């Protein structure tokens, strides 16, 4: 489709850009204490964006801007997940005391720009577009991670993020350039076609390219061995940003990986293709091992943490690992399970982070000591934190279990070669129980009845409820979600 024709399908992004400009302009006229209003501007804008994304999810899949990006139900689904996460984060930012010393105008604007990048990540089918969208997201994340400029940890987080980010995107760019060199095109479908006709002498270059590209992807979803930035950045960044980084870029990252491997390196264009058949590289095994190492490392290191925020950082590495378990299969079931997992993960993980914010606002700390006897002092917060921990562990009847069930189901269904991944995933769930329930232990098992029961402030309380309800309800009845995901499993595909 030509550029002009494309515009009508690009409405969400256009509205988003207008919103961002509105945020910037509004920031000029507001006093520091009033900058929360900009969150309203962005929030309202995003709701409209979400609605228009939803509207567009019914149009037949097509490419826009001369085969730069696609619009298909899959990308719409991911965009809606991202919009939901962003809206929750905007509201939480109002209540996050860490930010109260700073103007929030730029903060909200940067989040808005990041959303544009995330949207493009989910839908690009051109390696240049892919690279640009990743960079947009990364650069916004660097700034946001270092947003607390008076806090050295935050500065450290920003700087570390820049260094790792620059390095891994450099490596990825090199990989992409190899692909371009071999195939002479930047378009996914042309590349796919060209790779199919390469002879085996090109294999070494192809393997190099594959590994280098995966470095960039792995960095985005914090897969081992590209995860080193995660704990420090997550710990130093403002908690709202930590929460955001642990869900939204991950969702977009998985969308990008699925699209890339599915359409560039898969055997066939049909969704059933499940091997990267053009090289003799044992690709499913490599990804499988990476997934297992990722979740095992995340879980084992999380056990030793004293700060709950840092523990959640490692736990988010582990969750990336669970989702990666489905990548070696990459069948339609696998993609479905990742989509469902991402959706429930947004709620349970954000919920846990919101409680971290609530406790930090109250006590000023985020170590296990601050949670001592919390279940007796703030029973509702304690109970809901227990729910989030249950869900993150993946115990029924919570949403986290449904996510894991789908992943495990995919692997068992894929047969003999993938059974060891299920066993590894299962054992990891057991390991993760230990540290998630350490939180529950300090909240409830120590301490005793207190006469002063306190409740979180209404805004935070509302947010926690909003995340807790899906974390529980989706564990008991997720048929609408499953149907929605099934309808969204339509990719734009093209044969040359």
């Amino acid at each position: 489709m030509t550029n002009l024709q494309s515009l009508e399908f690009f409405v969400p992004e256009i509205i988003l850009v207008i919103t961002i400009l509105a945020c910037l302009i509004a920031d000029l006229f507001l006093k520091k204490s009033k900058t929360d209003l900009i969150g309203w501007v962005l929030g309202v804008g995003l709701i409209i964006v979400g609605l228009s994304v939803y509207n567009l999810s019914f149009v037949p899949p097509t490419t826009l801007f001369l085969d730069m990006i696609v619009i298909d139900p899959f990308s719409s689904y991911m965009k809606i997940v991202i919009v939901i996460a962003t809206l929750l984060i905007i509201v939480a930012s109002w209540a996050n005391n860490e930010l109260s010393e700073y103007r929030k105008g730029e903060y909200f604007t940067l989040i808005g720009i990041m959303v544009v990048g995330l949207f493009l990540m989910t839908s690009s089918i051109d390696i240049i577009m892919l690279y640009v969208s990743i960079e947009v997201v990364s650069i916004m994340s660097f700034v946001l991670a270092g947003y607390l400029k008076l806090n050295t940890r935050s500065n450290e987080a920003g700087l570390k993020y820049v260094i790792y980010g620059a390095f891994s995107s450099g490596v990825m760019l090199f990989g992409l350039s190899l692909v371009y060199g071999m195939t002479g095109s930047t378009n996914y479908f042309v590349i796919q076609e060209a790779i199919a006709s390469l002879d085996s002498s090109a294999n070494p270059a192809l393997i190099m390219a594959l590994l280098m590209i995966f470095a960039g992807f792995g960095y985005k979803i914090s897969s081992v061995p590209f995860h080193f930035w995660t704990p420090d950045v997550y710990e130093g960044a403002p908690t709202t940003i930590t929460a955001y980084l642990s869900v939204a870029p991950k969702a977009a990252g998985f969308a990008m990986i699925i699209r890339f491997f599915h359409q560039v390196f898969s055997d066939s264009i049909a969704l059933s293709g499940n091997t990267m058949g053009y090289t003799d590289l044992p690709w499913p095994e490599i990804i499988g091992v990476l997934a297992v190492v990722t979740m095992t490392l995340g879980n084992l290191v999380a056990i030793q943490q004293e700060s709950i925020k840092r523990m959640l950082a490692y736990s988010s590495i582990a969750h990336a690992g669970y989702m990666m378990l489905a990548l070696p299969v990459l069948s339609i079931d696998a993609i479905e399970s990742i989509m469902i997992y991402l959706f429930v993960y947004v709620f349970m993980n954000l919920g846990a982070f919101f409680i971290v914010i609530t406790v930090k606002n109250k006590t000023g700390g985020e170590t296990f000591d601050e949670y001592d006897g919390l279940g007796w002092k703030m029973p509702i917060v304690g109970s809901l934190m227990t729910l989030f921990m249950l869900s993150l562990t993946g115990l029924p009847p919570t949403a986290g279990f449904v996510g894991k069930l789908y992943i495990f189901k995919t692997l068992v269904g894929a047969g003999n070669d993938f059974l060891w991944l299920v066993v590894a995933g299962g054992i990891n769930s057991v390991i993760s129980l230990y540290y998630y329930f350490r939180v529950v232990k300090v909240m409830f098992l120590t301490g005793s009845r207190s006469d002063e029961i306190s409740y979180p402030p209404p805004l935070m309380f509302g947010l926690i409820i909003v995340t807790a309800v899906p974390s529980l309800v989706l564990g008991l009845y997720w048929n609408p979600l499953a149907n929605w995901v099934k309808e969204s499993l339509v990719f734009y595909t093209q044969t040359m």
Partner: protein
Amino acid sequence: MENILSLLIWIPILGAIIVAFLPRDKENLVRYVSAAITGLEFIVAIVLWRSFDPVNGSMQFMERYEWIPSLNISYILGIDGLSLPMVLLTAMLFFIGVFVSWNIEKAVKGYFALYLLLNAGVLGVFLSLDFFLFYIFWEVMLLPMYFLIGMWGGPQREYAAIKFFLYTLFGSVLMLIGILGLYFTCGKTFDILLIMDRAPEALSGVIWWGMSAAKVIWVLLFIGFAIKVPVFPFHTWLPLAHVEAPTAISVLLAGILLKLGVYGIIRVNYGIMPDQVYWFAGGLAFLGLVNVIWGGLCALAQTDLKKLVAYSSINHMGYSLIGIAAVVAAGEMNGSDLKAAQAGLSGAVFQMFNHGTISAMLFILVGVVYDRAHHRDINGFGGLASQMPIYTGITALAFFAGLGLPGFSGFVSEAMCFIGAFPVFKAIVVLSTIGILLNAAYFLWAFQRVFFGELNEKYKDMKEINGLELFTVIPLAIITLFFGVYPRPYLDLIKATMDQIIEKIAFAASYAVM
């Protein structure tokens, strides 16, 4: 009547919600409401029992609703002669347990809300016929148990609680993999009855890791259940959890939760893969033997009265395992000895019930003395018989029941297990009689040390067992004595279902590959 099974599950869930919203200062109100809810539950269970048709060995009172059609998950409940006695036992022990917990002082509201949730979980496992539902209830039990041990338990409660949780979760994860394996091989369904129909055919020839998938799935499921039983070597969580848990929770753990393991083996492993029984029965009987001997030896070494009772549970569940292994007698290669298979299986199912009542009684009685003396050291008492004659009498009765004296229900079921297993596993049966000896030794020796001899000066003022405590023990004692003399009503209740299971296993002998 139509939805009586749902009623059984949902009464305690609603009850837990009601209790959670009661004002937290009205502690007695919470206790009365919980008693009322479990009482109602017990009445419903009795109504169910009276309207149950014992001649029919298949599922009764079935309920079926669509739940998650995209994964073929349904809400299916049903009851047969295997689960009915367990449901009755559950309803009864949970009702009694409320009175055992009467003197809980800490966070009463939370305690009873979790208690009722546990009740719902246990009943759900016994009643559900859909694997997904089954698994949900199986896991729903864990969280209340974790809190009940961890918050209201003894000094080492935190460690005991997480150990229990980790062990059981490990088992259930393996179970989940087994369930998913069945889901895919048997045509993408979680419906247990449907899987039972399809599994023998669907599983034959499927290979996992170079082994027959049926064997792998059998082992995965078995480990999940074995941890609950607990079968040696997965038993180490049990003594700890039992000792640290508050009295009522020990009662429920021993009385009901351990039965879930054996129930699961019979319902799921036997029901779905009857041909593999022949492959595994020898191992099962051997594990039973190890349980009997190991549990007995450990019990003998204990100085903590509660730990002694805990190890006696391991010992007693061993008889049950030997009993269920005996069903292979029905196979052609073992001479189609249907009588032996019947004796073994019915004995094992009877033993589940009897151990439920007897161990509940033992734990309540240990709790009684602990409440007064604040310790349970067997050597720290002495001569209590002169101080507490009624308590001594009842404890004597419970101990005799525990050691399987004729005239008590335990004797009947243990004898049946042995009679059933003898034709097939002669050596194991002979060796496991050592267990009976140990069994008698540890109970009698403990009894002697606690009740006979000089009265310990410290306990001159020890109060006699009170009315509330008697109220919790007497019904159990009566049941034990009644079934000891006249086990017929129980055996008639389960016979049709047992026959059906045995018939299936006997038929499976024809296609079982050793």
